[in-house]
């Protein structure tokens, strides 16, 4: 990622294309947050590559001034890998949805995460296929009625965090479309992270799955139903900032500070940098209503990136190579005059 001292504004990243998402779609907010983050980070638009697959969210590259590539269904991760390996200087963003990323593109997703390619994966999870008008997706809750599951789905959904962790992910974060502050802080951290940054963005599909995340999104209840995790800070949440998380045996538990002898010092401190992902995974998989849904950067650990490793191997071999051109290569053939 190359940055400059030029002052950019979100406007510098807005293309001349009319944004065609439905009014009220959660994608609008994510787009705005992304443009703001790119401007704040001072990554020049021409050093930014935005790669997408197919689906509502995958239209995003058209709306950002950058080098954009709207590819084919499910393959965004592989295309983005190629772009990053070809030119590691670019800031590469993969825009994808729950169907694009986890159904048709599941294989590319886990492998880009496993390789730790330095790309930022913005996963728009609305738990539905919107562009094809309302079929269930791999993240749709079991039993949910959609056009292709009129009697309710009988499928167990994926949990994107679990897949990311299973693929040895080095970065996982989550935000809610309506929460611009967390969205921007998470995207900023993702951009700075070296490796595959998976950002699950919980977005609302106002037409086919309106309110899927509504119980979280309501401003009034959000503080009680979500917890925004920050590295090095205690896991405290709630309207009164008096609830917290503790470990009881192997299980995370919600406690109230000041009740049953619980003090603030008893609350777990979030360690996003721990290589051991046990607690991070538990945090990422917390489900309501008993537990708050975790937002913010849940895991962020350092490891070598694929693109840097490819580059390093080439640099090393070139430094010691005697053969540097095609003609020199040809000269190494066993050869004879005829």
């Amino acid at each position: 990622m190359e940055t400059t001292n030029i002052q950019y504004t979100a406007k510098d990243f807005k293309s001349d294309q009319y944004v065609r998402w439905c009014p009220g779609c959660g994608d609008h907010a994510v787009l705005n947050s992304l443009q703001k983050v790119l401007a704040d980070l001072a990554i020049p638009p021409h050093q930014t590559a935005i790669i997408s697959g197919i689906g509502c969210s995958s239209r995003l590259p058209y709306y950002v001034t950058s080098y954009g590539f709207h590819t084919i269904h499910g393959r965004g991760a592989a295309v983005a890998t190629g772009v990053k390996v070809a030119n590691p200087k670019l800031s590469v963003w993969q825009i994808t949805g729950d169907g694009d990323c986890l159904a048709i593109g599941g294989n590319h997703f886990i492998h880009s995460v496993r390789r730790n390619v330095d790309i930022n994966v913005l996963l728009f999870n609305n738990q539905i296929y919107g562009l094809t008008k309302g079929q269930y997706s791999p993240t749709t809750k079991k039993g949910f009625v959609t056009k292709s599951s009129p009697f309710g789905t009988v499928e167990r959904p994926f949990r994107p965090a679990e897949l990311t962790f299973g693929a040895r992910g080095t970065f996982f974060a989550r935000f809610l479309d309506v929460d611009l502050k967390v969205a921007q802080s998470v995207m900023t951290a993702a951009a700075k992270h070296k490796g595959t940054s998976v950002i699950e963005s919980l977005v609302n599909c106002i037409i086919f799955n309106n309110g899927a995340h509504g119980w979280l999104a309501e401003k009034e209840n959000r503080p009680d139903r979500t917890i925004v995790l920050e590295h090095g800070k205690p896991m405290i949440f709630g309207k009164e900032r008096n609830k917290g998380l503790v470990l009881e045996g192997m299980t995370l538990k919600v406690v109230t500070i000041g009740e049953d002898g619980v003090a603030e010092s008893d609350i777990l401190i979030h360690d996003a940098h721990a290589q051991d992902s046990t607690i991070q995974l538990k945090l990422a998989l917390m489900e309501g209503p008993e537990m708050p849904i975790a937002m913010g950067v849940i895991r962020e650990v350092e490891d070598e990136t694929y693109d840097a490793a490819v580059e390093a191997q080439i640099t090393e071999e070139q430094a010691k190579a005697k053969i540097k051109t095609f003609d020199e290569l040809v000269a190494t053939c066993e050869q004879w005059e005829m």
Partner: protein
Amino acid sequence: MDTAIVNELDNVVVRFSGDSGDGMQLTGTLFSNLSAILGNEISTFPDFPSEIRAPQGTVGGVSGFQVHLGSSKIYTPGDDADVMVIMNPAALKVNAKSIKRGGVLIFDTDSFEKSDFDKAGFKTENPFAELSISETVQLIPVPLSSLTQKSLEGLGFDNKTVLRSKNMFALGLVCWLFNRPIDKAVSFLEVKFKKKQDLLSANIKVLTDGFNYGSNLHLTLSTFQVDKSTNIDKGTYTSISGNKATAWGLIAAAEKAGLQLFLGGYPITPATDIMQELSLYKNLGVKVVQAEDEIAGITTSLGAAFAGCLAATNTSGPGLALKSEAIGLAVMAELPIVIIDVMRGGPSTGMPTKTEQTDLLQALYGRNGESPVVVMAASTPADCFHFTYMASKIALEYMTPVILLTDAFIGNGTSLWKLPKMAQLPSILPNYTNKDAEKVNVTSRDEVSKVRYWSIPGVEGLGHRNGGLEKDYNTGAISTDALNHAKMVATREEKVNNVANILPDVQVEGDSTAELLVIGWGGTHGHLMSAVTNLNARGEKVALAHFNYINPLPQNTKEIISKYKKVIVCELNSGQFASYLRTKVPGVEYLQFNKVQGQPFTVTELEECFSSLLK
């Protein structure tokens, strides 16, 4: 009795065959390189077993290597063998049908015991009679194993090393048989075993003893003399396999174009060697991604093309099927990419190690929508270099995907390759966006060639949004306008058709007054040309037009095809090129000669077919 009789021959086919562990590939390679150095033309073909480690001594584990050497132009590794070196009964069983009547069959008597016959599935202890060849070939029994043991006796080698050296005894013997001095073989071995001095000395000792065995024991056998080729284009040569030549073609093209080479691939027989070869050249800056599947092989590559590399992917039929949608994206996004399909027997998994030309229609038409691509085919192991280079040039200069068809036969086979010099290779000038140009967008193009300008990420001011949706001809914005779509479809097709402007004319080889025109394409050139040459030598009026450029076709195609009384299209499929020609050059009666057996043509069957048509 002295071996005074010398058979002077224009060309000879030699086949080495034994167990996977018998070192037949090395023996064959050394013998063919040795012959080439002495001035023969050569063409070789390895025949590996499909099982990786089949039980020793069984038919499934037989590995062979055939070389055709000659003093005049050699086009193929040859049909049946004049000389065969057979290391065990299983190898005999596999190869018995491919030895010429009157041919020489040298076999290791030490491996022709009861237990060996059982393993190979013979019912009697006379396999030659069982295969009905005891009367028709010259059998030369040689106790290769025990002679090798004797040769290395007392030199402190373990038994395993001793037995593994018996291929060198066989090589020494064959060198004597062909009047080949062994000093060159020794220098090859010195390179091969540079780091294993003890093995080197063992191999040289056995090789020498094998040679001396032939000359001292006065084998009742006439030797062969194949003179230097005199009609070869003078120059410096090596012997190269098609897959290696393909990889090198990409390297040369990237250097010429001043671009980084990127290959996204996935292991698939028989194309994997291309990816493996390229992964060696980190020193030349080659980036290879071994992807998670065939689709990621091409889509990583397409990402690299978008980012400004010379991008390629290697595959075979099933993989090409998986890449179809991404090729369509490359058509729509007008990005340069080279797709190499080393064809094998299909459909589905088919016969992965066998050769066929059955992917032609898939390459031409196997996509949704109107999606023309450039389709080409290489015809010999060595010219895989040239056609890969040209495929890269066309992809980069015309901003289009190019599918290059090779096949298992030329991919694995080797032929002589005149070493090229970078300075002599044609220029490659991608159609870059002029940085000072006024407003450019993703569909801005040269209005004559219809080639879109290439803007590469990282350059200020040239940002754009590309993708698989239809775009407006003028603004580059996404568009569903009816007439605009029609115009874009026509533009993309016109661009591909314009490639014909830089293609060489298709040449007619053979008798210029021919009545019968043989048409072929791709890897069958050697067999077709041999058949035509042989028939011409007998005064039969036949000629060959062989195609390397298929879409678009060379501009003189119609003119050539229309000239002949009879036209026959020969291909290793059920008639795919013939049906394509019926569409592109209608009004001609195309006869067909087709073979779909996973095997190349034999020159004999072609000659018979063409002769009968001339009667």
